């Protein structure tokens, strides 16, 4: 066990962690932040995506100690300061971008990384960017629509509802 410090959603946090502790376990078990979901634990599904220094990563496939000192952002950091849903989260709600919600934390974090880099993506770019995020419920159309809506684009002509 060794002490580990990083910034999570703007706050400095410290906890003891073994060398093998995954970033996903550190967040969920070490810090009690269970918003980050673990779907597959084999780097396939993207439910565990968080940002490390602004980059989307699968937190089940990153060692917590390897990102010591980093600036980590999770789904808990996506709400507005007053606790209301952030822009991407609200768009997912408005456009039915979730059903069971299991994949949603990863979807929102991947979408946020895309919009930071490409503020007005095309539908094809959104689909390409979300390739590593698997959803078993929605069939993706409404997720793509939500991301396009969150980017401020008109989605009224996109068919799926």
């Amino acid at each position: 066990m060794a002490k580990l410090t990083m910034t999570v959603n703007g706050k400095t946090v410290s906890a003891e962690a073994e060398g093998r502790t995954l970033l996903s376990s550190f967040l969920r078990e070490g810090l009690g932040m269970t918003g980050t979901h673990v779907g597959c634990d084999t780097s396939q599904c993207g439910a565990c995506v968080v940002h490390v220094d602004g980059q989307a990563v699968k937190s089940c496939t990153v060692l917590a100690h390897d990102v010591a000192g980093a600036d980590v952002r999770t789904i808990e950091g996506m709400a507005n300061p007053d606790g209301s849903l952030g822009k991407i989260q609200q768009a997912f709600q408005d456009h039915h971008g979730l059903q069971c919600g299991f994949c949603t934390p990863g979807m929102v974090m991947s979408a946020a990384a895309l919009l930071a880099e490409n503020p007005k993506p095309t539908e094809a770019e959104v689909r390409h960017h979300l390739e590593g995020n698997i959803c078993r419920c929605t069939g993706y159309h409404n997720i793509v629509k939500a991301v396009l809506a969150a980017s401020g684009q008109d989605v009224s002509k996109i068919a799926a509802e």
Partner: protein
Amino acid sequence: MHNFDFVKPSTIAEAVKALSDGDAQALSGGQTLLPSMKQRLAAPGTLVSLTGIAEMKGVCKGDGGLHIGAATPHAVVAREAAAHYPALAALAGGIGDPAVRSRGTIGGSIANNDPAACYPAAVLASGATVVTNKRQIAADDYFQGMFTTALEEGEIVIEVRFPIPQKAAYVKFNQPASRFALTGVFVAKFGDGVRVAVTGASNNGVFRWTEGEKALSSSFSADAVKGLSVDPAEMISDLHGTPEYRAHLVKVLTGRAVAQANG
């Protein structure tokens, strides 16, 4: 995953020293190693992270081509190699998905030498040089069959140096579940000839399709390989494709890569 000691040196010298212990293993992006440790296929006593070594990161123009630090993530190569070697940047930008590209590195990819990985095709087709802490290895000598390379115990890749071809393209036929290449072909045209490297297809890992190279060196057009056939004898057989299917893909993808390189 079995527990281990985690160390994160900031220089190559410290990393090499830490790796001289027989029970230690290098960790780069972890996109292959961590899943195999979870399955207990690997269980090092010490894990030596290479991600904190500044001298192993970055893309720069250097002697005879483009130098890429071994610990440079795919996403950075996709961005920073684009102006110098677009085919290489496009290959890096097509690996896995964005989260894999944030962490996975060129050094980890070519050290692992997965038979379906993309980078080995670029390294071999470009005739790149693999620079380690001990020596420089020509791509033709570096890849020695699937999951096998010329690297010795404790030796690490520091940098890869790519000569920049006049024209090049990589075409990958996706295996949609894994996002690796079912078959991928990298074609590179230099002043003195064409090199064609194939990944994903052979039981022997990445290889050069010399017959295709010969035909393309005399005429760099998609038609030049049309009349050739690829021997399926050494090709991979799995539920995604037969050896004959992969052999056929080699030819088809080579033609597409040439057409793309000719723009």
